[in-house]
């Protein structure tokens, strides 16, 4: 069984916390993503960028995690944005009707610059 289908890392670029996702986000691991994002928000991070550049695909379980994190960020007056949606990933956001729901930047550099 592939237990490391999703890897979640984070680093800081200036005052911006960049969460780097790699692999697939599905119903087996979306809760891990939600816990990780909520933990960062409750630890006091005020600017969070989630980088999808290395994500193969995501399912509605991932959308749920991102919606919960967006609400959580709002409650904590934190900025929460996404970046680097590749072609297949962008198409999935579109199918879910969620492309307009999140703040999405084309690249990590642009997202960090906007939040810095």
């Amino acid at each position: 069984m592939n237990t490391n289908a999703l890897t979640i890392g984070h680093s800081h670029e200036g005052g911006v916390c960049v969460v780097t996702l790699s692999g697939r986000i599905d119903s087996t691991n979306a809760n891990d993503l939600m816990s990780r994002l909520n933990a960062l928000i409750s630890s006091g991070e005020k600017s969070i960028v989630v980088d999808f550049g290395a994500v193969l695909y995501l399912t509605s379980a991932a959308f749920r995690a991102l919606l919960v994190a967006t609400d959580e960020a709002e409650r904590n007056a934190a900025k929460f944005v996404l970046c680097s949606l590749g072609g297949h990933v962008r198409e999935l956001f579109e199918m879910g009707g969620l492309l307009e729901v999140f703040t999405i930047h084309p690249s990590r550099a642009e997202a960090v610059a906007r939040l810095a």
Partner: protein
Amino acid sequence: MIRSVDLEIHNDLSEIAVVRDALDRLGSELEVPSRALIQLQVALDEIVSNVVKYSWPDGSKHKFLVRITVQATGVALDIFDDGRPFDPRSAPEPNLALDGQRPRPGGVGIHMIKKLVDDLSYERIDGRNHTSLTKKCAIGAVSTED
């Protein structure tokens, strides 16, 4: 060219990794185009997680069957479970967001399945749900769309 794999898993979200990995292996071995394979993986996760979460409201442990069939013209995903009747085609559309509000999660998965595959069918036979998803794609052909 036809290849079919039967997988029996429990109603536990972590076991979805078993069917996911099996679809991956078949997909790469039989050269399912990458965009189709990604969309099949998403559809498989949506339909199987739905069965895991809702088919047995009592929360007890059950097994069910997932069949992946690769044919020259496409891929079929068949799920057989003895949980409560549920026709995914009858699922309501997700709540549309009111102006300036975020859509609530829920219903998005089934809505996506309808967009991800070419056919979604359902029948209840002998106390079992049989849900079938079919996606057309040219198997083994060199994909130009990726």
